């Protein structure tokens, strides 16, 4: 960040904090049996969602994955609509038809999250194609995991985006594991970013736990992308704090490794930076945090008290008119 913009920094923090608290709240709701289905949480990875989306305009598009709550929050979904969706309510952004793995809110450019690993990339290519064809100045961002980079869909998508110079930003969240599988076991190279070369694109790696670094990196490339010079792939190194889904204990990781990464907790670390480097007062941050906590509480209440769909309602969505 060239000139320091305190408001922006606080915003970056606020979004991360909101994601963290939202995920924690969900976890306890699951623990206490108040929710159903499954969830894939992104605690530990908040800096990416926050840093990327702070560069985006409302009309820019994102596509995300099974681990998508954070991206949607960062892109500006109303917590009420999000929480209600997770509770399967009619007031949810998808009327309770999608659930945790299938969030969309086109009013803020969230064009869908898909639970098939790698499947979001081709769709984002299509968004990019549409932007190019319609000649708007939007960009389309695709979030996906390092595990997804072993899917054929990854390869075809990056290639197509590249040859057509589509305005797409591919954000690879390399959290070192795909479910139980460490990336070192399924890839013979150090960085997913190296694969960009296969499509004539640059190799870009950033510390995904450093929200400012993520913000700056995206900022550096976004005008290039917006102006039709082609897509970029940005690999963000990070780590998920919880298991793969729900209560999965992630025993395939050592305690030491987890502890090591918790020291790099993007939310905590950045809070310290805000205080130490940018002289924000604890009590000011508290106010901000408290407001967010209240927003989350109220969203959960809203969700719980919202009406559910009636049984027959599902049938009306199979086909559009």
């Amino acid at each position, binding site marked *: 960040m060239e000139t320091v913009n305190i408001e922006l920094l606080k915003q970056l923090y606020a979004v991360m904090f909101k994601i963290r608290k939202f995920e924690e709240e969900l976890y306890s709701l699951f623990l206490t049996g108040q929710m159903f289905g499954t969830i894939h949480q992104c605690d530990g990875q908040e800096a990416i969602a926050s840093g990327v989306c702070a560069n985006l305009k409302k009309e820019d598009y994102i596509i995300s994955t099974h681990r998508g709550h954070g991206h949607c929050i960062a892109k500006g979904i109303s917590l009420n609509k999000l929480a209600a969706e997770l509770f399967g309510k009619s007031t949810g952004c998808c009327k309770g038809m999608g659930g945790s793995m299938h969030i969309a809110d086109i009013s803020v450019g969230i064009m869908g999250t898909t639970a098939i690993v790698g499947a979001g990339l081709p*769709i984002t290519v299509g968004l990019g194609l549409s932007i190019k064809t319609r000649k708007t100045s939007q960009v389309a961002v695709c979030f996906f995991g390092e595990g997804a980079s072993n899917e054929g869909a990854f390869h075809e998508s990056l290639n197509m985006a590249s040859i057509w110079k589509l305005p797409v930003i591919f954000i690879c969240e390399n959290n070192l594991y795909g479910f139980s599988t460490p990336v070192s076991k399924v890839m013979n190279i150090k960085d997913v970013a190296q694969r960009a070369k296969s499509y004539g694109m640059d190799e870009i790696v950033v510390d995904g736990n450093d929200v400012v670094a993520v913000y700056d990196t995206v900022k550096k490339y976004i005008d290039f992308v917006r102006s039709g010079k082609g897509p970029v792939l940005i690999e963000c190194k990070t780590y998920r704090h919880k298991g793969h889904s729900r209560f999965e204990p992630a025993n395939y990781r050592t305690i030491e490794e987890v502890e090591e990464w918790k020291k790099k907790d993007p939310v905590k670390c950045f809070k310290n930076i805000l205080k130490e480097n940018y002289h924000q007062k604890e009590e000011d941050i508290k106010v901000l945090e408290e407001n967010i906590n209240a927003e989350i509480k109220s969203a959960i209440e809203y969700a719980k008290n919202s009406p559910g769909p009636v049984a027959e309602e599902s049938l009306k969505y199979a086909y559009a008119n």
Partner: protein
Amino acid sequence: MQTNTYNTMAEALRQALREEMKRDERVILLGEDIGKFGGAYSITKGLLDEFGENRVLDTPISEIAIIGAALGSAISGLRPVVEIQYCDFLTCCMDQIVNQAAKTHLMFGGQMNVPMVIRAPLGVSGSRAAQHSQSLESWFAHIPGLKVVVPSNPYDAKGLLKSAIRDNNPVMFFEHKLLYGSKAPGDVGIQKKSEQSSVMESATDEDYTISLGKASIKKEGSDLTIIATMIMVHRCMDIANEFEKKGINIEIIDPRTIVPLDKNAILNSVKKTGRVLIVTEEYPRCNFASELVAIIVDEAFDYLDAPVKRINIMDTPIPFAPVCEKFVLPNKKRIVNAIEQLLQ
């Protein structure tokens, strides 16, 4: 105003694309070799010159990305029409079609429509062997959220393709290779004269559409109902005409679309004749033909005078040797046998 007629399905399809592209600038085309080259079966020939590179996109051999590109653009303001070179290659992109495109409208609570069409040639066309001869339409009919079109002649093909393009759902549009009636620069679409039959109605310049979900009665009759699709409509027509001379009146129904299905047209015919034969070029198990049997039995059981019969490809991947290929197809001998059995 000069009126043209389009005597082959290839011309009719091309004209449908052209008209819709003129009418709506959101319509774009995507596919392998569809630009300058005009596609493996020449359907898009000339459209690149007419509409330019932004509307007619030659793609890499990347079926997953092709469908994704269509889907992503369909949910954000375009109306893409994809050509997959052979229906057999749809196996390379089933996730994008089935888990993504077909489910987008429901999963996201109706926020987005998915106005996209996937065109693909199908069928046996002369020793193209096991990987280039399949008819996989029933797979897609199996999936809620998709519509499935199976035209049998130029007139219908044009009207149906225009409807498909204007539809707000993902539509699978299948084209039988032997019905194209056009010589392609590469693999050749052969059209046997005897199979043209009277059903081979030409398309016109008119801006007509045919609703998805309207069957067409290709021949009226009172003794037996044949429900057939695509090239089998023609084969059955020829046979029905022969039976006609013997005083047996066969009704031939072409459903034209599998999803949505015109149940009424089918049931009305069944109620009239009481005897039904279904002829399609699909594999023999869990197919559209079985679906028709199930519907007819469920809703017109009391009208049936004989068991409903199906004729499909035999239970085997499609062999190369011509004699074998012909044997496993719903050929004349098998159809005639079944008719005679049903009329006993």
